């Protein structure tokens, strides 16, 4: 059963998009998944930027990938598609931002609001 729902038979037929046979081989021998998650942003209008791997990475590397992601930080502004990590975990795949994040604008307080202390 492929991710799109096609039932692929033992002789690797039945898929619609043509990627069936390759998918099945991978699924059995070396399954791969796209990783989508978030990375912390500093100075941004939102605290996290959503990220993805540009292609699938080996499924057994997901846990490790999450641990690495958890320690990453990126500084705003972030643009859609910006490369966060070029050769993510040496898989040859990029980790990119999937949304843009504007930099937060610091409000300047007027003088009568500032204390003299």
């Amino acid at each position, binding site marked *: 059963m492929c991710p799109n729902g096609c039932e692929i038979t033992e002789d690797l037929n039945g898929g619609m998009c043509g990627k069936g046979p390759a998918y099945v081989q991978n699924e059995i021998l070396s399954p791969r998944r796209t990783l989508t998650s*978030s*990375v*912390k942003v500093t100075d941004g209008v939102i*605290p*996290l930027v959503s990220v993805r791997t540009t292609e699938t990475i080996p499924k057994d590397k997901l846990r490790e990938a999450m641990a690495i992601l*958890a320690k990453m930080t990126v500084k705003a502004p972030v643009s859609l598609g910006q490369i966060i990590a070029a050769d993510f975990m040496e898989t040859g795949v990029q980790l990119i931002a999937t949304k843009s994040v504007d930099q937060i604008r610091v409000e300047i307080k007027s003088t009568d609001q500032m204390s003299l202390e």
Partner: protein
Amino acid sequence: MKRFDILIIGAGAVGNAIAREITKNNAAANVGILEKEPDTAFGISGRNSGVLHAGFNNRAGSLMAKLCVQGSEGFEKEAGELGISFKRTGKLVIARHEEDLPKLDKLKEQGETNGTRGLKIIDRTDFQKHNYDGIGIAALWSGMTGIFDPFEYTIALAETSAANGTSYYFGRQVTAIETAEADQGMRPDGKNGEERFIVTARNRKNGETEQFASQFLINSAGLYSDEICRMAGIHDYRIYPCRGEYHILDKKLSGSLELPVYPVPNEKEGGLGVHLTPTIHGNIMIGPSAEYFSEGQEREDYGTSREVMDVLIREGAELFPGIQSKDCIRSFAGVRPKLTSKTQGGYSDFVIGESEKVPGLIELVGIESPGLTSSIPIAKMVYSILKDRIPHNTGTHKEVQDRLKQRKGSQKMICLCESITEETVLEAYDKILKIGAIPTIKGIKNRARVTMGSCQGSFCTTQIIELLAKKRDLDPFELTWNGFESHLFTGRVRE
């Protein structure tokens, strides 16, 4: 140790009304209130039908009847002073069968004896005129019955009391009461001597023990009033908790029920004699049920059960066809502090008065329905017991004058279901802090109506948290659902 002239245990409608009554008339009286919950109206004052009863359901000659009728008569004035919404919708008690008819007559008679005005027996042909479209062969129309928001009312009483100088202590659970004898130089009359009562309480926020001293002690602890009495050495009372479950229906249904409708209880049919009550905000509530707890069962078990929910829907639909369980947006429960057990059954009046055994202690035990309606008359009754014995000052009192004042601020909608602006939420939060209560989502909900709509908070909960973080610097890990351990989150996703 903090010292007071009067210390009130329990900041529900009755406790708050007493504080207001005292401080309204005696600017010099030093009043304190201890409340175990983080905020006011988390107990029975916030778990009821929101009905102003007219007094025909109470036994003639009882304190319940007398105070209920006083409460009903005086409510326009009080609601006006407090700045709360109130509608005298009237109510219909429906007779479905021939054998119900004499009961209607009895109720009318009882009401008239109690002084209830506006009672009339009507027949089916007049139902429409009284805004009712459902089943029944005849009904008792009670013109004086009304509906209001019990949160708004209880909170307004608290805010007024606080503005008048009452000190509120939330999250304080009373654990012990020491009483000094009169001959030890302590007198409960405000003249010479040390305070008569020393109350020990545990601060639920930080676990510390605190002590409060007072000349007079008022036990308005609702469900726990018997336990407070016991701590003071009075073992005369036992509360039998009796839970009532309610269903709240989505607003999309309403507009079709204008007034409370109750069937005449019919013993042959059994069942609950389930009530349908519109709220002042336009939802319909079905309930309450009546379920006595067994010995040793936790008193504050506000859980709802499948069986009762099914019965409520079934009986509700009999009175009001078209009601379905999927129209229910929320269920809740309240527990009545009954003074009679299930087996005893029958009737028990309010216990209100100064204890003979422990002078200076004012007992308020068994304040179930019509407690809310009677709350201000109860307060006046308690005040009259105390007034000549507490410090007196005829200076002008401070009421909350700016309750109705318009405020400029962000009109951005935060709760779409109920059309509540950001400004309203911030005001609610500020009001919580102003009386010294501990901020909770529930407290904000009770004041601002957020999360009470169709989505039950699935859209606005996150917005409320963000708003308070941004505009009031509130740490989102500090804000709980209903206090203390009811945290919203277990941590951050990314530190």
